[in-house]
């Protein structure tokens, strides 16, 4: 019959089997809503139906602003329906609409089929995909890239009455080749001015800096491309270009910066790490890494693409540190593996993060334990020196250090007798990745892969994986906590958790979240649309977080786990909310599918 034929031809009803479609037909209602009608009202009672537009046009509006225009075959009302919350948007009929209505109770029965529930986040994935700032930028955009966001040294200022010696000292401290001189208009003094206008002229170190400054300063707008700045410097035959924004000098780009961009390549850093003087060079490791990440990001790599590079460099560091310790401790008595987990295990680390590692070896024994205890202690100390804070949860080789059979026994115990602490350990260690040593840890992987056949474990693991939720309020606004949003705990960890769970269920052995999502989609534990949405959400959150962290670093502020909402553009804020809502919906769909509330 007609209504069913129509539904059968439209997603997500096309994913339902004949029996489920018959159930839909048994409760389906058809309503007419004339142009101008408000089918849903923001802040009013929750939706009682899932609406499918059979004919007509419905607009979703937020504060009178059009969020989405829906047409024949489109559905709406889902978020309010599943969350039993007030609608997030007004649904206003633009052209007379014939609406198919699936009542709430029937809808709840339908979401138990995975494809059906996950369908509802598709449109967000598509919207995110179209979001211009999320388009990948080809690597090597360098010359065409805007100077804004380029990793530059902070600008120093000096009063015109100060001496050139004071100016030279400030420049030395800042590692800068030029300094701005206060005044109206402001001036600039460069390395070559000190040479040409002071030393060569026979002036003394007490010469007031104002006397030799160049005024006014030649500037390029801060939004210029690197190519424009380069052209400017070539034309003027200068080594510096001051960046100007809204009449103020905001930065300085030098030809040395251009060189530095070339130098901070991963390969350069990798070579540096391999030649690292231990422990003397360790304290600047974090800065070097941050500089590399900054320049990679600026030159067009997305945050999620930076992760594997950082992992490679960090792995090299661990290998270097272990080799260093072994140079005094001697070779290991038995084969061993240094394994990392958490985000480092998934290769999703961008800047220095907490240490997360364990040490396992082929067999125990008295001398063996003592050797690895010392190895762990000394490597952890060196990592601390390189700027990696200790793991607050204690997941470090100093305590997680055991023969591989013991570790395997623990893995099996977590799977066969899931208890709260075991599940927390599993969440961490199941992302493990060996980075140094020659022990084969493949058997550990086999144990994890076998967990896919343990429904009881999967249900418990699902509950543990869904433990952190996006910070959304009752009316789906983003909740700030202590003046910001924790993008990691509120977004990245929930997505990583879903990916780990669904890939595990699929029997996949991938570690990176994006690869896990693909594996889950390929195996059918997650729909392709759900996977695409989570992947977009993950990339978006990675980028947002890294951008914010780099902003902190450039300003010389300590890193914070919280990102204040007003530090984001309004577009990013809007997308962040959509991303949080999408994550929560997949979490809810997943919870329904695993029947988590039925767990004891």
């Amino acid at each position, binding site marked *: 019959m007609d209504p069913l034929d129509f539904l059968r031809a439209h997603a997500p009803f096309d994913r339902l089997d004949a029996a489920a479609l018959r159930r839909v037909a048994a*409760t389906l209602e*058809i309503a*007419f809503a004339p142009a101008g009608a408000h089918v849903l009202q923001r802040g009013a009672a929750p939706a009682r139906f899932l609406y499918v537009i059979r004919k007509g046009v419905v607009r979703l509006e937020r504060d009178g602003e059009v969020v989405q225009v829906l047409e*024949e075959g489109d559905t709406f009302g889902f978020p309010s329906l599943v969350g039993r919350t007030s609608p997030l948007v007004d649904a206003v009929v633009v052209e007379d609409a014939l609406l198919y209505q699936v009542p709430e109770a029937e809808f709840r029965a339908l979401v138990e089929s995975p494809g059906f529930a996950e369908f509802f986040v598709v449109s967000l994935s598509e919207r995110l995909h179209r979001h211009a700032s999320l388009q990948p930028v080809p690597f090597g955009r360098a010359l065409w890239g805007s100077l804004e966001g380029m990793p530059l040294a902070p600008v120093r200022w000096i009063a015109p009455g100060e001496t050139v010696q004071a100016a030279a000292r400030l420049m030395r401290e800042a590692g800068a080749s030029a300094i701005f001189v206060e005044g109206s208009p402001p001036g600039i003094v460069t390395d070559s001015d000190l040479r040409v206008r002071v030393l060569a002229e026979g002036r003394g170190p007490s010469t007031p800096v104002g006397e030799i400054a160049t005024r006014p300063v030649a500037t390029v707008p801060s939004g210029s491309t690197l190519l424009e700045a380069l052209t400017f410097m070539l034309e003027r035959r200068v080594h510096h270009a001051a960046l100007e924004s809204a009449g103020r000098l905001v930065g300085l780009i030098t030809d040395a910066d251009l060189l530095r961009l070339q130098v901070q390549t991963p390969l350069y850093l990798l070579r540096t790490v391999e030649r690292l003087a231990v422990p003397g060079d360790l304290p600047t490791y974090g800065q070097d890494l941050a500089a590399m990440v900054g320049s990679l990001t600026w030159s067009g790599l997305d945050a999620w693409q930076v992760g594997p590079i950082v992992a490679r460099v960090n792995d090299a560091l661990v290998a270097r540190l272990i080799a260093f310790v072994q140079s005094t401790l001697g070779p290991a008595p038995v084969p061993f593996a240094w394994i990392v987990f958490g985000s480092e295990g998934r290769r999703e680390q961008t800047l220095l993060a907490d240490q997360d590692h364990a040490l396992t070896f082929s067999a125990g024994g008295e001398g063996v334990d003592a050797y690895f205890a010392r190895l762990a202690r000394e490597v952890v100390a060196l990592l601390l020196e390189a700027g990696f804070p200790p793991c607050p949860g204690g997941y470090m080789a100093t305590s997680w250090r055991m023969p591989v059979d013991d570790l395997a026994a623990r893995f099996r115990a977590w799977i066969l007798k899931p208890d709260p602490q075991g599940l927390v350990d599993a969440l961490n260690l199941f992302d493990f990745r060996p980075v140094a040593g020659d022990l084969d840890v493949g058997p550990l992987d086999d144990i994890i892969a076998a967990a896919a056949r343990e429904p009881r474990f999967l249900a418990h693991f699902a509950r543990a994986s869904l433990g952190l939720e996006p910070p959304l309020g009752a009316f789906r606004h983003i909740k700030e906590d202590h003046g910001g949003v924790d993008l990691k705990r509120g977004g990245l960890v929930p997505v990583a958790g879903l990916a780990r769970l669904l890939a595990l269920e699929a029997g996949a052995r991938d570690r990176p979240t994006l690869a896990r999502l693909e594996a889950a989609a390929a195996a059918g534990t997650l729909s392709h649309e759900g996977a695409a949405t989570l992947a977009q959400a993950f990339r978006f959150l990675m980028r947002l977080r890294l951008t914010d962290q780099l902003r902190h670093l450039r300003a010389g502020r300590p890193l914070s786990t919280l990102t204040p909402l007003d530090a984001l553009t309004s577009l990013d804020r809007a997308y962040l909310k959509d991303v949080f809502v999408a994550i929560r919906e997949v979490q809810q769909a997943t919870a329904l599918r695993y029947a988590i509330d039925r767990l004891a």
Partner: protein
Amino acid sequence: MRLTAWRDWFGPSTSWEQAVFWALDLETTGLDPTRDHIISAAMVPVRGGTIRVGERWHTYVCPPKGVQSSLDALRVHHIMPRESAGAPSLADVVHGVDRRLREGVLLVHFATLDVAFLREACRRTGQRWIRPPVVDTAALAWRLHQRATWPREPAAEPDLGLADVRAACGLPPHRAHDALADAVATAELFLVLRSRLDLRSLRQLV
């Protein structure tokens, strides 16, 4: 008893949403109620302002011996004799229609013809025709047409066929000459016409 109900239904305060409308469509062997036969019937209710697809009812009718659709009729409704053989008898079908109409208003496109067939079916099976209140979507469409051309008289007769009126109202095409699809199509058209004419009480509709 019945009169009281009638008055309740058509008092000024009875809003249309409180009423139940049973949309009906019949497929017949031809257009003459005295000679032709009902071969299929379908009904679907409008309750609380929405069409309840789950309560749809569709049946073929077992024709009296020797009765066959004309070739023309067959061409229209595609119901083959073997489909209606073994179907409920006309008496059973009339009973099913009657049982539903006791609950509310008969909703039909071009009521005259279908009502004539139903009365005749009652006569043939010895049942009493309950004379339910009738809402005719073709008549509503005509009212809308007059209103649109007012104050001038409509220049030409509009096409008042179900498919034509639906198209004029912007409704999607439906599978015509299938009793159930036509009944749903009629119910949908009713919702649109009622809204366009802004008829809020039952009295205004009948």
